[in-house]
């Protein structure tokens, strides 16, 4: 029942349940079968992927579900409260890793973090890029002026196209090892995502107003 999630490390740990030695990477104790607490791994390591921007989405889903099948607290309803709590923290770690790998924005942020760059997401940093700043103002004005669904949809289409463009550019930048470029694209992507939320809100407001 021993296995490696990410880089295998054979250094001995003690199993919390039978107190015997287990490898640090073990999800379950090979002696007593008890589920082990999650290790502090990043998203790539937890789901066993190399630290690259390009990922196989179907493979992420497959590994995630396979691990949840074994680690989710619902698998431990007949076990002790402590095992259920450990399973819950395993499921939480898996969910976090899954959300990070699936989302190009979070994935890119993690890659930059791995490379020792401070992540531009999570902070409401002002936009440094003058071209993006101009575009931001222009689109915001258009959104504020939009009074019908068609106008909002048009802006939504543009935001979706920009979203795709940013992701492609991120892939190219990471592929070429151009981290400054990747960082700039990530800021742009973050901005378009925020705008997509605003577009949603605007659309809902118009739909509710009509109803």
């Amino acid at each position, binding site marked *: 029942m021993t296995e490696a999630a990410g880089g295998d490390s054979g250094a001995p740990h003690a199993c919390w*349940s039978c107190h015997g030695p287990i490898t640090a990477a073990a999800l379950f104790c090979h002696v007593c079968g008890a589920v082990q607490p999650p290790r502090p791994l990043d*998203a790539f390591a937890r789901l066993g992927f190399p630290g690259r921007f390009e990922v196989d989405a179907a493979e992420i889903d497959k590994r995630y579900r396979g691990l949840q099948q074994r680690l989710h607290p*619902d698998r431990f309803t007949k076990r002790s409260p402590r095992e259920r709590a450990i399973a819950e923290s395993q499921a939480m770690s898996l969910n976090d890793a899954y959300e990070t790998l699936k989302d190009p924005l979070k994935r890119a942020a993690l890659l930059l973090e791995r490379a020792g760059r401070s992540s531009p997401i999570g902070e409401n940093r002002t936009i440094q890029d003058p071209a993006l700043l101009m575009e931001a103002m222009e689109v915001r004005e258009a959104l504020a002026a939009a009074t019908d669904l068609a106008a909002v949809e048009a802006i939504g289409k543009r935001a979706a196209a920009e979203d795709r463009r940013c992701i492609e550019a991120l892939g190219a930048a990471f592929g070429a090892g151009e981290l400054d470029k990747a960082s700039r694209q990530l800021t742009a992507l973050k901005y378009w995502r925020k705008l997509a939320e605003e577009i949603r809100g605007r659309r809902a407001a118009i739909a509710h107003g009509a109803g």
Partner: protein
Amino acid sequence: MLLQIHEPGQTPTPHATERGVAIGIDLGTTNSVVAIAAGETPEVLRDENGKALVPSVVAYGEDGSVEVGEGARRRLLDDPGAVVGSIKRLMGRAAGELKHLGGTLPYEVEPADDQGGMVRIRVQDRRLSPVEVSADILRALRARAETSLGQTVTEAVVTVPAYFDDAARSATKDAARLAGLTVLRLVNEPTAAALAYGLDKGAEGLYAIYDLGGGTFDISLLRLEKGVFQVLATGGDAALGGDDFDHLIAERFLAERKAQGLVHRPSIGEAKQVLAAVRLAKECLSTQERGEWRIELGGETSRHALDRATVESLIRPLLARTLSITQSALEDAGFRPTEVQGVVLVGGSTRLPLVRRELGTLFGREPLADIDPDEVVAVGAALQARALTRGEGTLLLDVTPLSLGIETMGGIVEKVIPRNSPIPVAMAQEFTTYQDGQTGMLLHVVQGERETVAECRSLGRFELKGIPPLTAGAARIRVTFAVDADGLLTVSAEEKTTGVSAAIEVKPSYGLGEDEMARMLRESMEHAQEDMERRLLIEARVEAERVLLALAAALKAEGELATPEERAQLQNLAHEIRKAAAGADRDLINGLVERLEETGRPFAQRRVDRALQGALAGHRLDEVEADMAPDARAAAGSGSSGAARTSSRVPAAPRND
């Protein structure tokens, strides 16, 4: 070897898994349903007339009697002041939040004694909380199951609308507790419906579950695959349902009366009668094209002609709202409507032909109603109850429907957990003080998608005290939000700069206080104390089982490292534990388990030492260091991507002690 060896998952103590059948309950706004899945196929429990639906209506007699279901609904017309319906709409609501339900509640609502607490309703001369009324409904459902099974039922899976917020979920769980039921899991209604289709009908692929009930609307998108039911996105409106359609029609009838020159103003009781008549008219028009209805109030009679097209034009704007929410959920999941392989209908309101037509147009395919839309949720709940008690392979992976956040400066919401995050989930953010010497901080927890606190639902406020007095912005307060698999939130906060971390754990403070809950439990005569004792005893036995299994496994694998004396002692203790576990003395079991753990420590140490000697030399130092990393469980929620979510923010309300 004297010890019995058991494979993990098997049970050495007969009591540990001694459980009855767990039931599935769909606690609806208008009707409730109870089902069991004991054998191969799940079964909806019916009354002697074959009716599965139990109207979610409770009648309170002057003599203190309580009647639930069809009988209570009949009394609605004769004795409206004693009868309560649609209580689900009030679950977890404070009096101040009911404005948007304005006029749609045909009974008297009073604020709670404490500010922000759940509303109370006045029935006869009793003052009841929505939790108590819901508990009365749950008791009736439990009784139906017990009669049918001929045995006591203490465990249930209870469904809630996916779009229920934390307060309403918590209130539902409390109601079950009051009714003497342990909730194995709160399952979202559309997820339960998907489970029923997936397990009963073998559905696989991408499914949309459109659930329009009496009082709530939910849309969920799920991927069904080999026993795993993964919710990709969910959306809804916790205050939109068939009841609203009824109100629109009732308003039309009342306006027509006025136009006919009738002056009698309907009382609360009469309003209930009008609504009951309207509901019949609406149901009738699902199959008929037109009809005429007569209303008599205060001796004045009026006639109302109504056809289906008129009803449809009345409700179309409300349906448009559900379709807009559906499109947003699709967008969240990143799918187009045509990619959906099946659209499942849930809830009585999906019987309206207009609903089916509009969904057919949106998704480009006929919606599915193979399983009765009124019963499908209870069937799914029963299947999940069976999966959880029997440990079957089915797995539900659900999401949190609404974003959760903290109020920051200027009444702006800082989201900590975004909507549609898979649960269980834990995420943390760091905040800081904004005044020199600030030693306390008021944290306001909110739920919702809007940017400002005023437009979100307030879940509770709590204060973190004992922050070391530092210059503004120097303190680092890490606030962790954890949502469990039931969708229930726990918030904790700790100050990290000084190494002395003050941590507090808070259940958001809405709804019923713990004291109040304890009082109700006492009054509920459900032997709460005994229930609690029994639960603790079962837990002690499960824990004893775990320790015995672990010891047996260790002795089998590396028994040569135990001295003969140790082995004898351990086996002796194991024998005593098994004896104790057959009895009911919880303290004895726990004490012996502790002694066994203590006695086995040197043996365990030798096992670790041997492994260290054997393995350490062969490994690089960085591997060893990696294992010395901070507590894995503390890092569990945020992972190492935590930095992405960690930033310094200033919560709105500083406090100084």
